[in-house]
């Protein structure tokens, strides 16, 4: 192979499959050029590669416990404030225009430290961003991003989801990105964060003991999205009756509250009192009421359904290769998914081994997250604080762990190569260049991220730039850097 073909393959390895070459002396581009497939596959050797641990990263139950504590403090503070307000109330009842000479101090509750929610969120965000700077290729982190978006939650739902957004990804997504799809489905649908996000924690079987006693009833949200977005896909061949059946099957799947009657607060629990009794028919199969096992069996079958194989294979190929992925590739991935019983490492290897995955032109856009990570890898600078990254993502319409709906962020060119999106990206590139333009030589940076694969036009534009700062902005906005 000629040098330029090698360079092109290296670009595919680093940009299509990875997070972009790291600058400095990383040698990423040369290593990728020497053995492109081996470079990507190297990260798949150990399933532990995807795990993320650290002293500031807490398990979900600890985070919920912290939140419960905050909420209790706040309730107590409110009650106290109310008491004060009641004591002073007689003075404030008068509604005439003359103000009382000494207005009572307005009832100000001591503010609980709500910043804890934001602190925990940011600790996880920082760990994720720092991790993205470590690997040579970054394929596993891309897999984490893909699956995390597939099974997304949104921090906008409320403090419970926000404080555990990162823990959800660490606990339900990362352990399984090179494991079994069925295991990931189970981990996700039983995770407290998902149960909160899609309301299953409050879903009650109408004929359960709790349903008979209270006004609350069935909430179909999680069941619907499990079928439509997580497993079978919208055209996967299910009906409204199946949605309702699955919703009944997973009634009682909830989060242990502060009193801890069902277990340790903040963990998953099966609440028999809220579970709809009796057998349910889902996709033509009858599931006997075996408590939590009824739902686990149902999820297991959904994860192995032929529609799920096709749905996941299509989405996977669309993410990595093209908005309209090559049909033969989708067929191949579907078959691998089915034959391997949803083994996600096998799915990844099949993608890497496919020739069209390497020969298809680089027509996709880097997502906002992949873009800012690639820029920061290029200058070989991991962050000490996450705020600037989180702010940039917000400006680009892709706030971390906060997609617009349960279908996640869009994964097509149309979503990111918009007029507003490109203008914002350019403004952010301007900021990056301002901070770093004088610390790195732009031509060296271009060599590090694209090398021989850089077009003559790009090289020329950078060579003719009026300043290093301008040249750096052009490097990160160049088609070679934006496309993958």
């Amino acid at each position, binding site marked *: 192979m000629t040098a330029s073909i090698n360079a092109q393959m290296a670009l595919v390895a680093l940009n299509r499959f990875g997070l972009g070459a790291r600058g400095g002396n990383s040698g990423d581009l040369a290593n990728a050029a020497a053995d492109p497939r081996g470079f990507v596959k190297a990260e798949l050797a150990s399933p532990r590669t995807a795990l993320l641990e650290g002293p500031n990263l807490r398990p979900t139950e600890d985070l919920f416990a912290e939140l419960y504590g905050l909420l209790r403090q706040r309730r107590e503070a409110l009650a106290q404030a109310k008491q004060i307000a009641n004591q002073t109330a007689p003075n404030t009842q008068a509604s005439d225009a003359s103000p009382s000479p000494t207005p009572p101090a307005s009832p100000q509750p001591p503010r609980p430290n709500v910043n804890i929610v934001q602190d925990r969120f940011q600790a996880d965000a920082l760990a994720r961003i720092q991790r993205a700077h470590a690997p040579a290729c970054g394929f596993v982190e891309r897999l984490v991003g893909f699956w995390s978006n597939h099974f997304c939650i949104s921090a906008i739902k409320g403090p419970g989801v926000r404080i555990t957004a990162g823990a959800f990804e660490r606990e339900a997504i990362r352990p399984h990105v090179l494991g079994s799809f069925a295991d990931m489905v189970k981990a996700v649908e039983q995770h407290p964060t998902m149960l909160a996000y899609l309301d299953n924690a409050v879903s009650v079987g109408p004929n359960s003991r709790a349903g008979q006693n209270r006004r609350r009833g069935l909430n179909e949200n999680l069941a619907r999205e499990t079928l439509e977005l997580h497993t079978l896909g919208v055209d996967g061949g299910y009906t409204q009756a199946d949605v309702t059946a699955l919703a009944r099957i997973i009634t009682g799947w909830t989060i242990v509250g502060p009193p801890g009657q069902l277990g340790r607060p903040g963990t998953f629990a099966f609440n028999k009192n809220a579970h709809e009794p009796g057998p349910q028919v889902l996709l033509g199969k009858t599931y006997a009421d075996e408590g939590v096992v009824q739902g686990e069996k149902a999820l297991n079958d959904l994860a192995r359904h032929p529609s799920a194989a096709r749905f996941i294979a299509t989405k996977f190929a669309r993410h990595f290769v093209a908005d309209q992925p090559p049909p033969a590739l989708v067929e191949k991935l579907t078959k691998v998914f089915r034959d391997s019983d949803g083994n996600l490492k096998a799915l990844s290897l099949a993608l890497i081994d496919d020739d069209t995955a390497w020969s298809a032109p680089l027509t996709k856009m880097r997502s906002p997250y992949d873009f800012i990570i690639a820029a920061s890898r290029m200058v070989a600078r991991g962050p000490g604080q996450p705020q600037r990254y989180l702010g940039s993502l917000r400006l680009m319409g892709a706030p971390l762990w906060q997609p617009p709906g349960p279908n996640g962020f869009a994964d097509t060119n149309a979503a990111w190569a918009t*007029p507003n*999106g*490109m203008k914002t990206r350019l403004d952010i590139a301007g900021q990056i260049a301002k901070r770093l333009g004088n610390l790195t030589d732009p031509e060296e940076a271009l060599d590090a991220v694209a090398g021989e694969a850089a077009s003559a*036009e790009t090289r020329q534009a950078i060579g003719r730039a009026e300043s290093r700062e301008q040249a750096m902005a052009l490097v990160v906005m*160049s088609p070679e850097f934006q496309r993958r």
Partner: protein
Amino acid sequence: MTLHTPSRRQLLVTGGALFAWSYLPRFAHAADGRDPRFVVMILRGALDGLAAVAPISDPAYQALHGQQALSASGDKPALPLDNFFALHPAMPNFARLYGLRQAAVVHATTTAYRQRSHFDGQDVLESGYRLPGKTDSGWLNRALEQLPKGERIAVKGKGLAVGASTPLILRGGASVTGWAPSTLPAVQDDLEQRLLALYRERDSGLASALEQGVAIEKVAQREAGSMRPVGGNVIEAMRIPARGAAKLIAANDGPRFAALAFDGWDTHVNEGGTTGRLAQLLAGLDGAIEEFEKGLGDSWKNTVVAVVTEFGRTARINGTAGTDHGTGTVAFLAGGALNGGRVIADWPGLRDADLFEGRDLKATTDLRGVMKGLLADHLGLGATVLGERVFPESQDVKPMKGLIV
């Protein structure tokens, strides 16, 4: 948001036009030659309708709102709208428009949603469905899709989403263009031009997108001065996106529908009365409406601005000088096309027995009927389309009549 990728030749032909699809005929409404504009502003967090437009003659109001109640007298008297209702003094511009019959208030209104989650309430408000959980498309986008095809309107990007991401109300099948006031320092024109030159050589898709993005930004900023709010100024921060959006929908080849969202209305603590937090926000809203009036110029006469929120707040002040999540609230309507100068309300009263679940202003007007009335008379959408497609399963909610001049 979708990317329009014309061929290089098309790009050259359309040259300096704001939108690459501007060769399409202008949005022309029926035979009367009107070119209507429609703007929806969403107040996220739930606006306290009783604080914004106070029923000062309701005998129960003063007691419920205590120290925070508006009054016809005092330092900052409320602005009288009729014998019963008065407007918050932070909204003098709205009061002026009301006097010109170019503004109206709908009171004791909300969507079909009767729970109290912001998240679900906003989904219902924006999706136009009866229940939460439908987040594929919003009613304003579906209205765009339903505009009469015979007039070859709404083909591309006739909706403008203001903000970093498209709000649910404008998501869906009809293509929408986005613009957000930049909070970053703008890059030099020279860098823009160099990058565009590179894209034109190497990547026509990125060239087309960036070219439009730059053009949109220039129109939005035209004569607008700085787009950056001065340190934490709430009022200016709300005027800025409105100012840019007004320029864009005023442009001959610009979009005709716009959606904006403002956060911060969840006033659980220290809501304030004639001054304070809510007063600041209302002043910002008043400013945003004024920006549309000024920025649209002649086209203001063909414009309707609707200001809506997911639900109201408790009728009583809570223990922390604020209000909690409630039900009925107000919608503000403004615009030269509006048959205004009225408060539209089937007033439910504020005695304990009148309150919804003993705590909230009852909603007696379905907000969907108000929006349907605007879409019917301002944009010519039929009752069937409105009842089945735009607001699904709402045939029983009649479009409100007589809202448009």
